[in-house]
């Protein structure tokens, strides 16, 4: 019966490729706007980034091919070295912050008695997403100032000796930015873990109870292994996110004092927008992308290897 052209369960092998292409025109029409937009605003810029990394592009004039010169410069640049170290610290601590508070909160809520109570607390921990991320950043920036909340609190508990300008001290600036928003429970990560806990069959919990696995032992032996996919996804997203994140050092410290809060992504941004060295900036961006792809591949391999 041919009354349903175009529907997938009824493929028509009788037609040749050309005829099928012609019959497929509504589908191509449906896809056209999306393909044009992602082609021009996603794929083309990505192509420009990768190809211009091998040139001395200044953002305006026709670039000259310079081979791997930009990459050599990037790996031998001491500022890049410091920035990479900062990024490594950020990624490691950021990973802990992305996993531990949401896990703690989702476990606590999941163990509450009563659906209504669980629902109420779940809502409480999603509400903070109404705070625009820039507002959170700026409010915390004001906490860190010499006349800010943090120093006021220290003074009020008799620890005036610890007072200082947190973002201007090279020793504390980076950690201040990393812990900004603490103990920020990411709503997305929290909901993901909570849904994961809900998906565990009740039988498993009952069996664990019979075996005497309750409280912490249950969390370690049942919940964590079964939450592996969710934890793995959060870990990958946190790593990818933190490798490319540079908004708080850009807005609050401009990468300073010195290069104490400079990360490679920020260096890429400044190299292009402030120094006009677009080719070099793209080389840094390509190196970062390789890192992101490698880390993503590694974590997928890790999570598959032990299954």
């Amino acid at each position, binding site marked *: 019966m041919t009354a349903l052209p175009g529907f997938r369960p009824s493929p028509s092998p009788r037609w040749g490729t050309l005829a099928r292409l012609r019959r497929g025109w509504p*589908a191509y029409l449906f896809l056209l706007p999306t393909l044009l937009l992602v082609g021009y605003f996603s794929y083309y810029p*990505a192509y420009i980034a990768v190809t211009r990394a091998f040139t001395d592009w200044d953002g305006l004039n026709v670039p000259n091919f310079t081979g791997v010169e930009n990459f050599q410069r990037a790996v031998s640049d001491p500022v890049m070295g410091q920035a990479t170290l900062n990024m490594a610290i950020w990624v490691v601590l950021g990973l802990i912050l992305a996993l531990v508070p949401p896990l703690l909160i989702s476990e606590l809520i999941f163990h509450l008695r009563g659906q209504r109570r669980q629902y109420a*607390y779940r809502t409480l921990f999603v509400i903070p997403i*109404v705070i625009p991320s820039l507002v959170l950043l700026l409010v915390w920036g004001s906490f860190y100032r010499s006349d800010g909340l943090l120093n006021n609190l220290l003074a009020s508990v008799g620890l005036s000796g610890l007072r200082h300008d947190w973002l201007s001290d090279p020793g504390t600036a980076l950690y201040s930015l990393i812990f900004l928003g603490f103990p920020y429970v990411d709503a997305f990560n929290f909901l*993901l873990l*909570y849904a994961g806990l809900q998906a565990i069959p009740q039988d498993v919990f009952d069996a664990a109870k019979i075996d005497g696995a309750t409280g912490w032992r249950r969390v370690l032996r049942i919940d964590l292994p079964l939450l592996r996919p969710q934890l793995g996804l959060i870990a990958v997203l946190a790593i990818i996110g933190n490798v490319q994140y540079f908004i708080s050092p850009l807005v609050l410290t401009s990468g300073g004092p010195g290069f104490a809060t400079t990360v490679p992504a920020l260096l890429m941004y400044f190299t292009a927008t402030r120094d006009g060295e677009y080719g070099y900036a793209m080389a840094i961006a390509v190196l970062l992308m390789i890192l992101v792809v490698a880390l993503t591949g590694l974590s997928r391999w890790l999570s598959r290897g032990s299954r």
Partner: protein
Amino acid sequence: MTAGPRRVGLTPGEIVRQAVLVLFGLLALFPLYFSLVNSFKDRVQYAENLLNIPSTLHPENYAVAWAQIQGPLLNSVIVTVTSVLATLVLASLSAYAFALMDFPGRHLLFGITFALLLVPEFLTLIPLYVQIRNLTLPSNYLAIILPTIAAGQPFAILVLRAAFEAIPKDMLEAARLDGAGHLQLLRRIVLPISLPILISVAIIRLIPVWNEYLLPSLVLDEAHRTLPVALVNFQGGGAATAVTPNYGALMASYVLSAVPLLVLFAFLMRYYIQGVTSGGVKG
């Protein structure tokens, strides 16, 4: 299994758990409280105490803040609403094609769209900025709206395709026999059935668009700049600068900029929770 009525009692463990949760919850909301109480203080009150509710209120801070951010607030609403709606329209068309139509190159084209989730944002940021700078657009709003629609496509298509595929085929084929075209099927059956999922996708996508800072700060001119860009400008440099800003007005602007999302989430919170927990975004 059907869980019997669980005992809603208050054991010591339950009290400790709730206490910890309340503490964490209040800490997460603390920036909002901090902005709110300090938005009603003048400079002297702010310097004296950062945590109390002031005895004499200074609502004039809100007038100062409003004058600064009313334009950007409107710009943010225009940009966000247009981007998210257009993202949904285009992604619906594409998801319909991928889910319910048969055509050569279906897998290849889906792969091409899906692979975009792997292209990091910082890689395209600078080339995009150069590209848009050299582009003559009929309106400066489009400088941020168009790339934002493109950036939203992979996620929206992925979720919508799964939803459209789950629609019973009988229903669609019956309508098809009645002579409905693809566009009619999409508008009359597929979209109405998928409304909850469309709202979920819209609201999940809305958060990053509303908060977007980097590209807008580069491509939008002063008249069209959005709220995050305006807030940073209003604040006048980072916390590391020595100038003491007018904190009252600053905090008032922070409170005002949280109001739109607060209103939205008062109505649509459950769609966000459902969307994230439904498995549509599981890796």
